[in-house]
Structure formats: C-alpha cells, structure tokens
C-alpha cells in the first residue's frame, strides 16, 4: 500500500508545481547572467549613461503600442502617464511636461559606440526580466529584444517569471533589466515620482539622484509645497531630470480593451483611483447590469482592501466625503460642503444631515474620525495606511508606527456634522482622494458589535451608499441592489436597479457570455482583441498604469 502514499504526496507536489512552477521551468535563473567573459562588473554597463540612452532611443514605442499590444495602450511620453493628473491650470500633466521620449536609431547607435569606448568592450549582452501572469509583458519584451538586437546588435536574453517571483528578484536586486509597472493610488504625479525618491521607501533601490531628490523635497514638504503652481513646476522638472539621466526607461501606458453593451452608459473609468459603477444607465428591460470581473472580490472591509475590484464594490455601498465627477474632479458626496484654511492645512467638512446608515443611524463626524483612526491603527496594519501620510494628515506616520496614540491623528469631530482634518503640509490632491475607499467612514457602534466578523458576510455590513450588497456568493457572484434609504434615492432611480459582478477568470468564456447577451461588461485579454475589435461594444480605455524598464545599477549575485 506504500505506493498509494507516495502517489498522494506526488500528487500534492505535482499540483503545486503545476500551478506555480510551470512558467519558471523554461526560464534562465537571473543570477547566471553575470558572464565574466564580457565585463567584470555587469552593473557597470547600466551605470553608463550613453548605454542607457542608447537602449531607450532604440525602442519604437509606437510599434509596441499599436502593432504588438493593440488593446488601447499608448507609447510612453515620460515617466508620468497621460490623462491621469491635472495641474492647477486644469491641463493634463503630460501636456505641460511634453514628450520626453525619442525614438532615434542613428543616435542610439552613436551613443552605443561611445559607451563601448568608455567601457572598453566590444559588445553588450543584457538580460530582460518580465512576468508571465498576463500576456502583455512577454509580448512587449519580445519586441524590445528584437529592437535591441536589430538596432544595436545587443545580445538580449529573456527571463520569464511569475509576477511575485519577478518582484522578489527585483527587490533583491538580482536582475539586470526588469519590466515593471506602477498603478497610481491618487491623481497626482507624486504617486509616481515618489518611487524614485531615495529617502522615501524601498520601491527604488538601485538609482539615486540628488538633484531629483532636492526637487521632490521642495515640491512635497519644502518651500513650494503650499504653492500649487510652483509645486507642479518642480515635479515637471524632476521628471525631466530622471528621464535625462535615464534612471528608468518608460515604455508604454496600459490600455485595456473591453466589451461594453451599447445599451449601457455611465461607467466612469478613472485612470487614478477607483472606477465608478454608481451612476450607470442600463437601457434594458430589467435594468440589471452584469459585469464579468477577472479578479475576485477580496474583502468588503475598505480598510483592509488593496485591489480595484473590492474598491469598486465598496464604493457602491458606502461613499466618501467627496466623489469624482466625469472630469475626475472632486464634488460633494457625504459632505455637502467644505472649507480649506488659507494655509491649506485645515479642511473642514460639513456632513449631510440627511445621510443615514442602513440601520437608521445618522451619519456623524465620528464615523470618519473612527474610520480614519482605524485605517492608521498599528494593530490593523492596513496595507493602505500609508495613504494618510501621503496627504500629510497630521501625525499619520507616527501614529501608524505606534509612536503616538491614535488620538493624536489630525482628525476631529467638532460636532455631529463637522469633521475637521489637519495636515502637516498642504496637499493639492487631498480632496480628490476623499473618493478613495480607504477614507470612507465606518460606524463605531456597528463595528464594535461585529468586530472580528465585520464585513465578512451580509449581516456584517452597513450601507450609506446608493447600493446594498444583497447576494454574496463567494468566489462567484456579487449582487448589489438599490439602497432604499439612500439620501439621494430619488436621483438614483434612473440608474441600474441591480449590479451583478461575476468572477470569471477565463476571458474567452466571459466574452462568449457577452455575445449571448448575458454579460454587459467584459475586460478582454490581448489575445481576444482581434477577435472582438469589430464588435459594436468594443472599447479601449487608457489606464493609469505606466510600464517602465528598471536598469539595475547595483546587481547583486
């Protein structure tokens, strides 16, 4: 009977191997890259500016976006993506900063020759790391490999890993060039620029630039922080510094191809922050919106959530002080008005008096105080606690690290309807973030009555938004129906009666269901774009995700 035992264990092994190791089997370990034959120190070639520039100049980003990806992605024009952050003048950041990226093969060749002379080598080999969780990175890297080989004669080895393996390798600095992306949390260039700020965190661990750091210091916490125009100019300058020095090589801005039933309108896509399904019109008999989601709902606890899908559903059920309008500008939601002090450090929100929680309790300022303190609570260890510090809420960092009691956090309830937030440093994008679920309110009494099971079932949820969560089928389907007690119920009447999110990880199945008319919204994978691009419901949207190449100047074995 022993063989059964062996078999069972082998099965368990095989199952895990089949799921996690499949992709890495064919790839080369990153550490084997350092061939002593070419150069003694592989990092040296990445420290060479001419080499870095040559690499960037020889990438035809338009070809990558239009011929390789075809899903609405666009060529990068800089570190900061397009259509996601707007300056004090109301103009898109990219419009102000301009296109910083060139495609010039002749120049690239010239610079490469210089790099060869400087480094005393005849040719270069590089290793390019990408993740296999989705298709796009592989396609893009194959194209880049081709371009570098054809344009520069560089020998490129591709290394494919799962996303988490790639992140682990990049964190450990055991890679040469890695394709990575950033999804912004809020509509300000700072969310990107901070990545390469040498004192901030561990995101960037291979490139340091004093000039860049100085500009960011000035813009974020220094003399220009309170002056939106100057702050904006500093950030534009900082981006130019890092692109001129090729601290990173921008590649493309993520697009996404979708199928949306033409009878459906009003889904708001926000390139930064959370997409909104709150005001969707459905021209169908049953006014039900069926959405196929390719990632499952992780949690309904808005202080614990980290993923877009969860945030979308939480936004239906609760809501913030402000919401974003179609131009991504903050407008009143649970706060009916607000004032900002002249120094930009104190925000006073006047809450709606007619807003009631679904159990009949009226909304009070304490619901925000309690919620924000919970977000910052070292006990909870919310992965989004940092966002309080990002908008410079007073003592956010110290409280989160347990150095100060939570009572010291810069929030207070002046009376039931007045919520005041105090900042350390002025923040131009703080209002926009009020629409982000991490800042949503939470009723203390309700929470304390549920504590450990809070947000884990329909009985453990309280609503103040336009919808209530009416059917929760884990791993499968999430149904939201109108909240009868919503303060703006009359206005809400014209929107979808019911929104059903169905978790389907196979895009092809979701697309077939769309064709059958059973699903209204589907996100396509790249391989399905050609098949569906002539469908009347085919749309592409730009996302805030910007993909770039990190060139590791501090390779570790």
């Amino acid at each position, binding site marked *: 009977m022993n063989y059964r035992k062996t078999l069972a264990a082998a099965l*368990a092994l095989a199952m895990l191997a089949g799921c996690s190791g499949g992709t890495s089997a064919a790839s080369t370990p990153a550490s084997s890259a350092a061939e002593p034959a070419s150069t003694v120190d592989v990092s040296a070639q990445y420290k060479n500016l001419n080499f870095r520039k040559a690499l960037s100049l020889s990438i035809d980003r338009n070809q990558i976006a239009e011929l390789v990806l075809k899903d609405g992605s666009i060529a990068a024009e800089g570190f900061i993506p397009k259509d996601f952050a707007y300056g004090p003048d109301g103009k898109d950041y990219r419009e102000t900063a301009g296109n910083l990226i060139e495609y010039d093969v002749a120049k690239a060749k010239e610079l490469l020759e210089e790099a060869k002379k400087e480094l005393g080598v005849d040719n270069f080999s590089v290793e390019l790391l990408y993740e296999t969780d989705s298709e796009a990175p592989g396609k893009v890297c194959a194209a880049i490999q081709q371009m570098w080989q054809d344009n520069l004669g560089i020998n490129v080895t591709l290394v494919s890993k799962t996303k988490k393996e790639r992140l682990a390798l990049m964190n450990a600095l055991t890679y040469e060039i890695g394709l990575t992306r950033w999804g912004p949390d809020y509509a300000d260039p700072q969310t990107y620029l901070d990545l390469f700020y040498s004192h901030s965190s561990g995101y960037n661990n291979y490139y340091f630039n004093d000039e860049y750091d100085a500009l960011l210091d000035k813009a974020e916490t220094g003399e220009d922080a309170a002056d939106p125009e100057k702050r904006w100019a500093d950030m534009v300058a900082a981006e130019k510094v890092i692109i001129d020095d090729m601290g990173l090589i921008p590649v493309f801005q993520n697009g996404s191809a979708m199928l949306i039933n033409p009878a459906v309108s009003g889904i708001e896509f926000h390139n930064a922050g959370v997409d909104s399904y709150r005001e969707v019109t459905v021209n169908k008999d049953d006014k039900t919106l069926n959405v196929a989601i390719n990632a499952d709902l992780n949690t309904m606890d808005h202080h614990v959530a980290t993923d877009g899908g969860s945030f979308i559903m939480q936004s239906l059920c609760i809501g913030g002080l402000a919401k974003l309008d179609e131009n991504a500008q903050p407008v009143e939601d649970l706060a009916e008005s607000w004032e900002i002090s002249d120094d930009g450090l104190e925000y006073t929100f006047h809450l709606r008096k007619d807003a009631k929680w679904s159990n009949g309790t009226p909304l009070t300022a304490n619901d925000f105080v309690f919620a924000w303190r919970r977000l910052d609570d070292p006990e909870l260890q919310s992965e989004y606690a940092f966002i309080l510090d990002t908008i410079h809420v007073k003592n956010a960092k110290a409280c989160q690290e347990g150095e100060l009691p939570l009572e010291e956090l810069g929030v207070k309830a002046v009376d039931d309807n007045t919520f005041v937030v105090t900042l350390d440093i002025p923040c131009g994008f703080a209002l926009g973030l009020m629409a982000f679920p991490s800042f949503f309110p939470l009723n203390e009494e309700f929470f304390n009555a549920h504590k450990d099971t809070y947000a884990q079932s329909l009985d453990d949820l309280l609503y103040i938004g336009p919808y209530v969560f009416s059917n929760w089928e884990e791993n499968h389907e999430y149904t939201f129906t109108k909240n009868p007690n919503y303060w703006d119920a009359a206005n809400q009447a014209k929107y979808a009666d019911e929104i059903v999110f169905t978790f389907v990880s196979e895009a092809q199945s979701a697309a077939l269901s769309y064709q059958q008319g059973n699903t209204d919204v589907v996100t396509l994978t790249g391989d399905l774009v050609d098949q569906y691009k002539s469908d009347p419901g085919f749309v592409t949207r730009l996302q805030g995700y910007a993909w770039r190449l990190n060139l590791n100047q501090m390779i570790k074995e």
Partner: protein
Amino acid sequence: MSKYILKRVLISILTLSAIIFVLFLMLDFMPGSPFNDEKLTAAQKALLYTKYGLDKPFFVRFLKYLTAMLKGDLGNSYVLNKNKAVADMLKGPLGVSIRVGALGMLLGTVIGLGLGIAAALKHNSWVDTLCSVVSILGVSVPAYVFALLLAYFVGFKLGWIPILYNSKKVMASFVGPMIALAMSPMANVSRFTRAEMIDVLGSDYILLVQAKGVRQKDLIMKHALRNTLIPIITIMGPILVNLLTGSMVVEKVFGVPGIGTMMVTAIQSNDYNVTIACAFVYSAMYIVMMLIIDIMYGIIDPRIRVAKEGS
C-alpha cells in the same frame, strides 16, 4: 475486514500529516510572500509578518498550524478573502467542486464502461471504432481545450448549456463542466474496459462458463463484468488525479466557484493558509478516494477480501 479498514484509515491519516509537512516546506521555498505589493515598505512588511506570525521559525509555525488544525481551524486568509477563516471559505467551493467532480467521474466512468464493453463485445464494429476515437480524443485533448470547445459550440453556438456558472440554474450549469471533466475518465475507462473485457472473454473460465451452457447475458453480467471491473478499479486512482488537475482549468473556463479556481488564485497571490488548505483538501479527497477504492477492491475481488479476513 474492519481491521483492514482501520489500518488503511490510520495509514491515510499519517499520509495526510506528511503531506501537510511537505506543503509547509514547499511554501517556505516558494518565492515571494503574501505581502509583496510594491506599495509596501520593508518596515511595513516586517510588521505584517509579525502580525500573522510568519516571522516565527518553520517548526513553530508548523506545530501551531497542526494543533489549530486538529481543532478545525485552518487559519485566516491573508489575501483572497482577507482575515476570513479559511475553513469557512472552503465550505462552499468544496461542495461545488465535489459535486461537479463526482458527476464528471460518474458520467465518464459509466459511459466509459458501457462503451468499452460494447466495443469488446462488438469487436471491430462501429462501436469499437467509436470507442477508439473517444479514447484517443479524451486522452490527447486537454480538459481546458475541451472545456473551451464545449463552451463555444454547445454553450454559445447551440445555446444548450450556460457558458458561465449560474447559481440559479445549478444543475444546468454543471452540465458543461461535468462533460468536460468526464472526457478523461471516459477515455481511460473505455480503453481499459475494452482491453480487459477482450482479455476476460478469451479466458479459460469464460470458456468453462460457456461449456456450462450459461446464457450470454448472464455470462457477461455475472462473470465477465465483475472480472473486468477489478483491473478497472486500479486505474481509478490515476484517473482521479487527472480529474482533480482537470477540475482547475475546467472550473476556470466555466466560472465555477470551486476549489480549483480558489487554489489557483491562492497560489498566485501567495495566500499561504488558503493554498495549504486547498492542497490539503485535494490530497485528502485523493486519499479518501483511494481508501474507498481499496475497500471496493476488497468487496469486488474475493482474492483480496478473503486474504484480508484470513490475516
């Protein structure tokens, strides 16, 4: 027999503990962590590790997990369904997966047996050809491709079955996944049954049964079938492995909220507790099935049963 079953149960429990250990060990070697979000700083990660006790040495964690498990506590999810008890998370998906899997297995086995027997009896006829075609297709076409073909042709083109799982029409929703899952058992069982049946029909004891003047129907039902079934039972183990691995992709295609989908997501997001629990459930299902097969084997094959009774 009861002593034998008891012994097998004990061995199964030991095996399962060994599996948990191996799983734990493997997860330790897996790259990444549940908290490898780019937005987290090293300090935050360290705090999260402490919070979930992941900073403790391997054996401490293992023993803690094992003791909690005996109380039915499989820990909480770190990613998939944050802070929710894994044991609660498993219930729904497990039920769905078992139902789909059992139906697929049953359908595949029954049709496979029928096809195999028919092919063996009508050697070189169209049934035999059909049997060969089915077994070649079933063995060579991956469950994923078959599921997609079913979803496209039967689900989309013909509209006979729902493409996506619908909890309001559970039985109809099971049809697609069930057929997709049934292919592999059907192919294997029909191939084996055919070969075994031909073998049995050519055996001396069947000749003796013929010499007794027994009717053909009784010859097949009372003698040939039983003897054919014994070797078929031995291949049920490998078939079950196919089925379990197939269930992951089939569930994905049809959007079935089963444990396969859950496990793939858990592995991708390094949700340790969920991964271990899913892998454990798979192993447990396998071991329990093997146990059942062993016992069935005893019932159907007197050579095993009687030997067990004797010892």
